[in-house]
């Protein structure tokens, strides 16, 4: 059993639909409290630091423009990155999908004769399910990010892309560490917990000669890679080992070194509510006698090219993984990340995951939003998430239109009938009269509806509905017009 008290499935191919996956979390009051507290704290910090930037809206616009330019010229910048990274002593590999990326990485580890590997937190590696693959091939994987250690030792899964163990509280961390590090005396004092993690890690840093990282940015102009982090474990992984393998989505490329000026400002403020993140590592290829002497970059497509082709959806790939959207999301605040059935939760996950699977999976995710727009408002690269959610819903509907069983879906049927009704005022008014009679069946003595069948039961599970009034507005208007002696329209 994991820390969460249930087994999260983050594989979009097998994860249950969102409404079902949300249930264990909604029933776990401790977990919901942990999540709400954590996002409220980060949100408040972000709010303060964004407010102090008088040019925040210009920074957002610049961030969006830089990312758009990179995406519109993606093949050019990727080739430039490959050229310059190679010239600096790195080796660039191209992976069309998760399976190819995993194979490349395992082959590289075999070349290194590595049976152990240390890792910096990388959501891209989680996307390709790298850890279980490597473990089954006999390579022991050691996560070095504090949150990732908590999850790895607690047999749990990430629920957030910046703070992966956001759903776990201090007391639970203590229990995991006490059990897995055999330290029954450990206190839940944050310093004691980080000290325990530190002594566990230090030995790995000094003895494991191979590391895997992700990338926050690839810089086409220099062929360099950038990683931002808070704990310094990344800096250790990037400097101590003999060999380093970086796996990065193809969308991570920035045209120029100078673009970091904008991106690093918006990223730190949006992600952790800091003016600047504590550690920013930048490296270019291999430097003889200093740091890893063998450096590989695996560039991962895994569905990204298909997103590039769609004009509305392309902005999804602007994402710099700051997680401000999930911290601001009232849905995520209730469900946490596991319900999204993907390593990418929250609003960005709700649009990214279905697209990465080319809508073969995760069709429930575009509906996992009340379209309140909070995500769009905070997004540092101005991704219009509600717009994309609606567009994806339309694509799901278009899939459904081709299936015979659509007529057995009450929502589909209801929408088609409503469309027929709304196409004519006569039909609309007739439907209102019918509804008024039909709803009497369900209306109580107090004039309210307390219980409805079918889809309506999802409404009456927590809300009443006032019974239909005896006179609609248009009936009232017509009667008033008539009384005034005018000709009703």
């Amino acid at each position, binding site marked *: 059993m994991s820390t969460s008290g249930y087994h999260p499935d983050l594989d979009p191919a097998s994860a249950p639909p969102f409404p079902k996956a949300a249930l264990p979390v909604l029933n776990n009051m401790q977990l919901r409290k942990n999540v709400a507290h954590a996002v409220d704290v980060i949100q408040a910090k972000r709010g303060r630091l964004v407010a102090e930037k008088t040019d925040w809206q210009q920074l957002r616009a610049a961030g969006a423009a830089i990312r758009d330019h990179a995406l519109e010229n993606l093949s050019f910048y990727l080739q430039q990155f490959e050229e310059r990274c190679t010239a600096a002593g790195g080796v660039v590999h191209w992976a069309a999908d998760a399976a190819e990326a995993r194979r490349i990485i395992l082959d590289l580890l075999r070349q290194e004769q590595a049976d152990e590997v240390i890792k910096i937190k990388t959501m891209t590696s989680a996307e390709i399910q790298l850890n279980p693959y490597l473990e089954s091939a006999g390579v022991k994987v050691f996560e070095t990010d504090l949150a990732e250690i908590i999850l790895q030792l607690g047999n749990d899964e990430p629920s957030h892309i910046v703070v992966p163990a956001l759903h776990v509280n201090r007391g639970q961390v203590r229990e995991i560490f006490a059990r897995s590090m055999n330290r029954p005396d450990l206190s839940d004092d944050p310093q004691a917990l980080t000290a325990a993690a530190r002594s566990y890690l230090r030995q790995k840093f000094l003895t494991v000669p191979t590391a895997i990282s992700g990338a926050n940015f690839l810089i086409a102009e220099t062929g360099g890679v950038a990683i931002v982090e808070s704990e310094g474990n990344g800096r250790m992984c990037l400097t101590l080992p003999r060999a380093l393998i970086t796996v990065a989505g193809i969308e991570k490329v920035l045209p120029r070194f100078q673009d970091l000026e904008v991106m690093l400002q918006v990223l730190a403020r949006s992600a952790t509510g800091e003016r600047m993140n504590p550690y920013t590592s930048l490296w270019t290829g291999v430097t003889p006698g200093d740091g890893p002497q063998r450096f590989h970059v695996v560039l991962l497509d895994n569905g990204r090219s298909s997103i590039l082709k769609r004009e509305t959806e392309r902005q999804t790939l602007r994402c710099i993984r700051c997680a401000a959207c999930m911290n601001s999301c*009232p849905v995520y605040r209730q469900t946490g990340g596991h319900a999204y059935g993907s390593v990418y939760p929250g609003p960005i996950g709700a649009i990214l995951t279905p697209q990465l699977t080319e809508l073969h999976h995760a069709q429930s995710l575009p509906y996992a939003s009340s379209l309140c727009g909070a995500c769009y408002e905070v997004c540092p690269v101005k991704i219009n998430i509600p717009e994309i959610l609606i567009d994806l819903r339309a694509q799901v509907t278009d899939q459904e239109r081709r299936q015979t069983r659509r007529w057995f879906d009450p929502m589909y049927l209801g929408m088609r009938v409503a469309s027929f009704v709304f196409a004519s005022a006569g039909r609309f008014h007739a439907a209102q009269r019918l509804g008024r009679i039909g709803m009497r069946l369900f209306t109580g003595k107090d004039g309210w509806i307390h219980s409805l069948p079918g889809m309506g039961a999802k409404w009456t599970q927590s809300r009443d509905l006032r019974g239909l009034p005896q006179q609609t507005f248009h009936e009232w208007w017509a009667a008033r017009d008539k009384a005034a002696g005018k000709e009703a329209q």
Partner: protein
Amino acid sequence: MRASLFITCYNDTLFPETGRAVVALLERLGVDLEFRSQQTCCGQMHANTGFRSEAFSQAKRFVRLYQDAEAVVVPSSSCVAMVREQYPGLFEELGNEALRREFAALLPRVYELSEFLIDRLGIEDVGAWFPHRVTYHASCHGLRGLHLGDRPLRLLRAVRGLELTPLPNLDRCCGFGGTFSVKNGDVSSAMLATKLEDVLGTQTEFCTALDNSCLMHMGGALHRRQAGIRTIHMAQILASTEASPAEIPA
């Protein structure tokens, strides 16, 4: 000043008192109102649920129906947001050039109620009287879609007898989201419970908004809990006077 009312489908069916209040309010302010009985729905429900071509038909209907109106007043912020945010995309994708031109000409004349009062009529004090403790819920579409800002609060502050208590976490969604409330009924209910903690904490008599969809959601749960706080559309508060106080259904 002549204006045409777009009452919207669910207000017409479920909340006729809102439309009646808009009539009382605007006629009191000297607006010459008309109501085109051919109106049905703006298409929001279909668009937001992914039924784009159905939404397009309704959007086309809306534009054709009001193309010669001097002003269209809509007492529902989410329906106005639908027109402003989604019609352009629908007409871009599915419409013809003539329709797009008609829409572009109509769009600046479509007003949400508080916009119409403040921006078009230039009135903040509508002469209302409502001697009750009230809190205001800023619906997401009004807040982030229409950027109504403090317009609703300026209108409420000018109402005689009204005691306004701010609602904490004003920018947080109540969890309605149209079909979201049934497709994701459990999550929606959890969001609603969080919102109601804030609403109940204000210890007011009424929670008001410019959108009956949020109010139906919150009001339904407040009724279920027999919580004592009731929901009321802001049009009813603004229409209320000493001579003719708001009609408050049980």
